[in-house]
């Protein structure tokens, strides 16, 4: 109300402050569950649910110690390793198979390209349930249930069509003159791919790698279906062991393990946040 008395310079300044306060306020509410999760993982059992206080009164590492000792039959590192193996396999598979397919769709000419591309786009939208049961039967027949293969092998066959689309979009922005110059220098399609396209495709490859890692790391549905031997359990599956015995006394270790499961995603996010957010902005990744 008194702003009319102030000079214009002073009117602008408080509006900025109000804006920052507003944004930070919304952000705090939004990130509260994560902050709460981390802080609860350091609370002793007696404090876990009894208080609303965000910070633990007597912080303890016991929950983490317990989780490292064992959840079910194994320590948390065992599950961590399993998750890591599957995610790493999926990353390699997607980067290799999707870039190969994207080069063909984006640059090469062959019979049936239009219909094939159309079909590939449709598979992006396809609910996985419609292929779920026959795929399960296939992997069962091949004796691969309870191994990591059903979770890794499909990635080497470019089933995550979304990333093909992402890379095709990227390849189309690369100047064709480069291909032509390489062709004049004697490069065939393979040479053009190796020496021209692949190096320039790096940003799209990195986006693909990061998102594949995070999605595989978080994936619960397929792991739940294909892995039922505790020795093969991943972090999400091991966490699920807590669900049925989720008495309040188990809350501490459960949240400690939850935090450990989120840690790689958090680190990836901090390291690559610009990459991730720009990847979403340019390609509409659902995230």
């Amino acid at each position, binding site marked *: 109300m008194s702003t009319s008395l102030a000079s214009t310079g002073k009117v602008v300044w408080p509006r900025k402050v109000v804006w920052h306060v507003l944004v930070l306020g919304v952000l705090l509410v939004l990130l509260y569950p994560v902050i709460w999760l981390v802080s609860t993982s350091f609370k002793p059992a007696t404090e876990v649910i009894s208080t609303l206080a965000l910070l633990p009164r007597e912080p303890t590492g016991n929950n983490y110690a317990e989780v490292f000792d064992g959840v079910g039959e194994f320590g948390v590192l065992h599950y961590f390793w399993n998750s890591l193996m599957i995610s790493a396999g999926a990353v390699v598979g997607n980067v290799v198979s999707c870039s190969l397919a994207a080069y063909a769709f984006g640059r090469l000419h062959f019979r049936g390209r*239009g219909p094939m591309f159309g079909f590939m786009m449709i598979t992006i939208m396809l609910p996985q*349930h419609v292929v779920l049961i026959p795929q399960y039967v*296939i992997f069962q027949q091949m004796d691969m249930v309870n191994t990591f293969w059903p979770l890794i092998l499909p990635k080497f066959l470019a089933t995550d069509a979304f990333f093909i689309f992402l890379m095709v979009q990227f390849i189309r922005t690369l100047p064709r003159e480069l291909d032509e110059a390489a062709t004049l220098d004697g490069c065939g399609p393979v040479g053009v791919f190796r020496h021209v396209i692949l190096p320039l495709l790096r940003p799209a490859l990195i986006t693909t790698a990061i998102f594949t890692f995070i999605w595989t790391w978080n994936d619960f549905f397929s792991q739940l279906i294909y892995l039922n031997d505790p020795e093969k359990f991943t972090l999400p599956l091991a966490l699920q062991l807590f669900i049925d015995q989720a008495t309040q006394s188990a809350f501490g270790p459960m949240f400690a393990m939850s935090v450990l499961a989120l840690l790689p995603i958090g680190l990836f996010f901090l390291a690559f946040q610009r990459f991730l957010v720009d990847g979403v902005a340019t390609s509409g990744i659902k995230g």
Partner: protein
Amino acid sequence: MTQSVLAGTSGTSRPEVADSPPLATAPRGRKRRGQGVAYLFLSPWIIGATLLTIGPMAASLYLSFTDYDLFSPPNWIGVENYVTMFTGDERFWHAAWVTTKYVLISVPLKLGLALAVAMLLNRPRMGVGLYRSAFYAPSLLGASVSVALAWRALFSTDGTVDKVLASVGVDTGGWVDQPQYALLTLVALAAWQFGAPMVIFLAGLKQVPKELYEAAAIDGAGPARRFLSVTLPMLSPVILFNLVLETIHAFQAFTGAFVVSSGRGGPSDSTLLYPLYLYQRGFTDFRMGYASAMAWVLLAVVAILTALVFRSARRWVFYAGEDR
């Protein structure tokens, strides 16, 4: 940047864009050799599409007309699964209803929040990039079992939500234990992840020409009028894109419902989302034929809805310069 988001939208509806750059310069012989190499590059995808998509789709369609149970060979039973589903399975209709509610509430809520925060962030201020990333973070974390577990605790009896509401005189008890509130915890979990569509909205907002706002302001349009007459129409292709993506996504929500209800869909089946019921039928009861039929019904519903949205889009989506 939005260009490619828009290209994404049109690409999904009109995939034939791929054919646009013709290359007529290559001589015949090389072109033919190029074809062979092209199939070589495509071979992983071709094998995957055949063995892991087309084949399984056909197989699951066939299985949907059988009584397959994973242990004995399937017997053809005609449309019995579908008849049972539509006329004799109350839980099927219940799951369909729960999912409908979930989609109808969570998608508009998520997109509304996404647009609101995008509008808030769409100004040249210090730290906008950082804020944008922070708002996006839940989209990466939200699909995890970890966050679903935190959700379950936060919304349980004497959990944070219960206590905060009680302190302002609203006594709801724990949401996850009560049929009338349990689904709302899942809606909240979905809406919490509004960051991804928000980032896409922000990219769209950057593309709206400033002159349009200036012209509207000169014509005497207030902020509300400018939002309705400039922002919304200019943003409509991006809204369409987000709407389709989020709807398809919402129909397949699973992890949250599984974790919050210990895999049962309770209390009183109030969180029995369609994919969760499909999972129970297929992988708990081993009624794989029935689950396959459910999968095809899901596909049909999603396909019809997507087609309807794209159809309606002709009326409400505005493409700048589309008369060209």
